[in-house]
């Protein structure tokens, strides 16, 4: 084995090990869920089963909705029935929520418009 190759191999291995150690396992997304729903006017829907989330975990919402002028809120409903939300803008919602308290949360979408809104996208948690 050439000395240069040995050095390159060691460098790559070290780099990978350092990177592996610096990524806390708890912060890794556990899953990706796909959303494809039509939300009725002036209503709120919860999507999927409850998510068991720990303090510090991140939930990223990447959704698009139509019509783009609709007023739509995206967020999480906590176990004590609090809906913490972001408002979509121009047909897009791309936000990340950091969980402050361990518990079960539901992803929810609220349509504040007077017409149905189609929503598609992904939620990473």
């Amino acid at each position, binding site marked *: 084995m050439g000395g240069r190759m040995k050095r390159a*191999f060691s460098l790559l291995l070290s780099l*990978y090990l350092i990177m592996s150690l610096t990524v806390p396992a708890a912060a890794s997304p556990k899953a990706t869920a796909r959303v494809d729903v039509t939300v009725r006017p002036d209503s709120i829907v919860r999507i999927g089963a409850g998510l068991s989330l720990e303090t510090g975990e991140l939930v990223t919402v990447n959704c698009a909705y139509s019509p783009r002028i609709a007023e739509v809120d995206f967020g999480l409903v906590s176990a004590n029935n609090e809906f*913490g*939300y972001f408002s979509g803008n121009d047909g897009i919602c791309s936000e990340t929520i950091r969980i402050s308290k361990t518990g079960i949360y539901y992803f929810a979408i609220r349509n504040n418009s007077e017409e149905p809104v189609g929503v598609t996208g992904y939620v990473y948690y």
Partner: protein
Amino acid sequence: MELKDKLIKLRKEKRLSQIEVAEALNVSRQAISRWETGAAAPSTEKLIELSRLYGVSLDELVNGVEPGDESAAGSSVQPRARRRRLLIALALALAILAAVTGVYMLWRGERDEIATDFEDLPKITVDLDSMEAVPWVEE
């Protein structure tokens, strides 16, 4: 076969005496004797002259590789080449893993930076049980 044995074998095949070889190479008979007993080794220059005198390649003289004996040569080269390819493949795999990890870390860092605490979000109280429930889309 060791060099000393090879030297004896080739000299005998050529039906030469140690003195004749010594004269041809312009060295003493004792030098030839020392080479053939392994007490000393010929210099590179003398090895070249010996290979010419005995009509063999330098490689054959030093390594004992017969001309056209590719299996002997290949057996040492092929595993080395295979090992090299394996190492390159391993290095590439690690590089890809490192790149994927790096991209993930950047993405995670970005998420961390823009994340808003749930506590800081505007909130309303809702009735979870009376909400319409829709399943995730199955992939």
